[in-house]
């Protein structure tokens, strides 16, 4: 049956650029199709979006219930925790909306439908990322935006142009970092199809972690998400700088601005892992 090698691999800069453009166009096409099909069942869509909104809202309700009993957690006030919550939630929400469907790869390998995608003249990555595009995930983004909007006027920051720009920068880099984690997790499923849940530890688990101040966690855990799976660059490091809190690891100050570099490195690594996985894919047999 079809393997990764049957997909054309153009060489050279122009070929690559054309390939990316083709992939993006196909992605847009598939996304539009799924959005139209979702909106056909309007009530169901509204319910699922509200549910998605509420599911994440529960996390924040838990945080507010905690703060009904305390003034600060790990030296952070409620607006500061809300700022962490909002920035992390937006990053994960956007990554989940854009290519969260990729975690369905294991199922497609098991039932053999990945082969159908391989036969189409569109990059598999674009197809599977747009597969069953779930507009309801906008619920999480909306909820995180509301929390962030509540937090921004309440945190004590001496806003300058640079500091204002750091907030959208965090969202973009954070989205790229979570997107890389989603992709790497999917690539891992080429080898272990049933292990889809492992990546939840890093995506949803990472989000649960980043909602709270780094001062709350053990140093080893903070080191792990700084050096090993550098989720700390999603919001922790830039937020510590913005809020004027000392870094528990005592890293040099310029590290706080490495977000874009880390995001680019992670996306490259995840892309390589994806190619490796796809190339090694040998279908289910007959």
């Amino acid at each position, binding site marked *: 049956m079809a393997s990764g090698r049957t997909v054309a691999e153009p060489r050279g800069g122009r070929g690559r650029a054309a390939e990316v453009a083709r992939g993006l166009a196909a992605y847009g096409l598939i996304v539009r199709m799924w959005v139209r099909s979702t909106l056909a*069942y309007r*009530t*169901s869509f509204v*319910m*699922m979006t509200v*549910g998605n909104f*509420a*599911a994440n809202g*529960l*996390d924040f*309700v*838990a945080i507010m*219930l*905690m703060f*009904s*009993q*305390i*003034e*600060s*957690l*790990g030296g952070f006030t409620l607006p500061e925790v809300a700022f962490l919550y909002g920035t992390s939630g937006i990053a994960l929400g956007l990554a989940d909306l854009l290519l969260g469907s990729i975690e369905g790869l294991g199922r497609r390998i098991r039932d053999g439908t990945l082969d159908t995608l391989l036969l189409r003249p569109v990059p598999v990555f674009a197809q599977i990322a747009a597969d069953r595009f779930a507009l309801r995930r906008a619920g999480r983004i909306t909820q995180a935006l509301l929390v962030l909007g509540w937090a921004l006027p309440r945190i004590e920051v001496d806003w300058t142009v640079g500091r204002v720009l750091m907030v959208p920068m965090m969202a973009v880099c954070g989205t790229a970092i979570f997107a890389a984690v989603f992709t790497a997790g999917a690539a891992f499923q080429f080898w*272990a*199809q*049933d*292990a*889809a*849940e*492992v990546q*939840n*530890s890093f995506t949803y*688990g990472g989000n*649960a*972690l980043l909602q*709270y101040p780094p*001062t*709350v*966690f*053990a140093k080893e*855990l903070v080191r792990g998400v700084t050096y090993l799976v550098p989720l700390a660059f999603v919001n922790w490091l830039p937020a510590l700088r913005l809020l004027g809190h000392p870094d528990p690891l005592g890293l040099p100050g310029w590290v706080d601005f490495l977000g874009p570099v880390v995001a680019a490195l992670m996306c490259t690594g995840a892309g390589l892992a994806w190619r490796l996985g796809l190339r090694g894919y040998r279908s289910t047999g007959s």
Partner: protein
Amino acid sequence: MVYAAVAAGSFRRYATYRIATVAGVFTNTVFGFIVAYTYIALWDERPHLGGYGQAQALTFVWTAQALLATAALMGGGGLDELQERIRTGDIAVDLYRPADLQLWWLAADLGRAGLQLLGRGVAPMAVGALVFPLALPGDALTWGCFLLSVLFGVLVSFALRYLVALASFWLLDGSGLALISGLACMFFTGMVLPLRVFPGGLGEVVQLLPWAAILQVPADVLMGVRSGDGLVRGLVFQAGWAGALLALGRLVQSAATRKVVVHGG
């Protein structure tokens, strides 16, 4: 007996998903660590919050992770399959079988819960006990009471999920309801925050709802917060909700099977 066979079959079925089980244990453990550290910070600020010491709060965290799959704290747990069978009309075949629908699915759910308690419960709890100081009992009797309490909790969880699944007889697409009931389950079981920590009147009300029987009572039994009279009251509370909700399930079931009209004839 046929129901024992169903339970055993369900146990074996879930036992075949080995990699998925390992992946689940990994995820439960990671979440356990994250929540444990936030609770340590919370109890550092407010020692004895909700009547728990820090070790008891940590025990709650790891009990919740251990029971997450067993008691289906996030919904689902195999009954989404029943919901799908009702939606597609396959349920008509099930109703022809010489077995009771509720008992059949209850047996299947108990088999699943049994496997997941062993496969997904023991390991996270062991890791938690190794890394954090937990308030675990030293005597076999308390562990026995805990297991009984877990069984009652699973019965209540099943009864609630069965009602949600049966709602598909009336709603064409039950996925919205399943989502809402999953959310309610996460919040009112104490999964997001122990019910004893909820402030004021809210805290008292949530401890009377059926969801409290699923996680809060078993956790309190395990860490010895409920002993003597409290223990008996806790078990009676659980058994009461289990009996009431299973009976309600029977009523709804007979109403549903009387009206069932499979699509297309």
